[in-house]
């Protein structure tokens, strides 16, 4: 489970988070939508423990070891091969790279190529593999669709489904309502560091959520 209680954080005179509270239960995915500067990335970085909030607290069951991060930057080393990158990150989690990880993401034939020689879509797939190398129970996704090709987007959806199916939780932040809604069990709209809407998605489709988002953020 993941829980945020009264998260507040300021950068100088800018309030990035203003008393944000919510919880995500096992098997759920929270999609947080908001315009640029709404505080989405700061929220995710606080949940990951990369930023210590000035007020409030974030709790993730299992701590840092349980978290997998997928962002628009792949956190990979271009000079190293796909396999070397995954081995390096696995070593920091004291695990070995799962045998089927590369094949699950269609990367087997690229395993010994340096990351800098791969296309943007393939790099994003390697980034997804990197996030999964320690079998995380919590996925934090920062604008995960940026630069994804169709195959990588499908791989990402499968990965989220797998994690949810095992009782994991995920939080994704994006400004792309259409793409984010399909993956979410709960949706939140964020503006000025606050949640202005937070509810289960229910049976609402992407179009309906997008309409509500436009009204809430306008």
């Amino acid at each position, binding site marked *: 489970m993941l829980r945020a209680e009264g998260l507040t954080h300021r950068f100088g005179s800018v309030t990035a988070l203003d008393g944000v509270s919510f919880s995500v239960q096992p098997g759920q995915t929270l999609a947080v939508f908001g315009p640029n500067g709404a505080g989405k990335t700061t929220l995710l*970085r606080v949940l*990951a*423990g*990369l*930023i*210590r909030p000035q007020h409030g607290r974030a709790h993730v069951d299992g*701590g*840092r*070891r349980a*978290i997998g*991060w997928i*962002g628009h*930057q*792949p*956190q*990979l*080393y*271009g*000079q*190293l091969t796909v396999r*070397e990158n995954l081995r*390096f*990150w696995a*070593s*920091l*989690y*004291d695990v070995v790279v799962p045998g089927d990880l590369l094949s699950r993401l269609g990367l087997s034939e690229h395993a010994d190529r*340096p990351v800098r020689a791969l296309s943007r879509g393939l790099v994003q797939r390697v980034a997804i593999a*990197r996030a999964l190398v320690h079998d995380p129970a919590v996925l934090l996704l920062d604008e995960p669709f940026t630069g994804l090709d169709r195959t990588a987007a499908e791989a990402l959806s499968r990965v989220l489904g797998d994690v949810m199916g095992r009782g994991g939780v995920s939080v994704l932040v994006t400004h792309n309502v259409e793409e984010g809604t399909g993956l979410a069990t709960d949706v939140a709209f964020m503006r000025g560091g606050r949640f202005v809407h937070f509810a289960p998605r229910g049976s609402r489709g992407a179009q309906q959520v997008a309409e509500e988002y436009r009204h809430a953020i306008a």
Partner: protein
Amino acid sequence: MRLPDSVRHAWAIAAKDLLVEFRSRTGILSAGVFVVLVLMVFNFGRDPTAVSNIVLAPSILWVTFTFAAILALNRAFQLELENQALDGLLLAPIERGSIYLGKLVANLLFVASVEVLGVPLVALFFNVEVWAHIGTLAGIIVLATIGFVSIGTLFSAMTVRTRFAELLLPVVLLPFMILPLMWATLATTSVFADRPLNEIAGWLKMLAGYDIVFVVVSLLLFPATVNE
């Protein structure tokens, strides 16, 4: 025997940095070329009758090593900013100290490889007796290098997110390098002058003390430099 987690994680980071450097070779090549060029400029630019080689060579040796080390230190955390890999390191369930130690080991090996190139060149250009005292000279170089690379690794982490990191690093680092460089230069002068070992023992002790203090201080301060 299983190594402690912090040591294994530090070695994984150091090995990764060295592999990245081995693949790209940009840092080691530029530092190596820099060392050769600086020593050549000093060699051809000096008046051999004005100052004796024994007095001049140690200063030039350490000035060269200092600036070659700064080249290496500037790259240490730059690598982690590409693709935001630093976030991945901070998110991993490892001690912050392991990141520092890994970077320190990689930087030490990088600077050592440049120093291995520089010592024979100094012997060649300045006609000083290096090989008869290579053990003592290696001890001085190791102790001094640990000192300024330890504090340099910390400052590299502090400055890497600033706009003018490559300019800022030498500005904040050089004042802290004055003492170890002064002691190393004095000790090296004594070695080149064929002075007895007990004459440089004091410099070596001070270098060792500096190393202990700044490795410990850097380990303690490092988490604060990378936490937001």
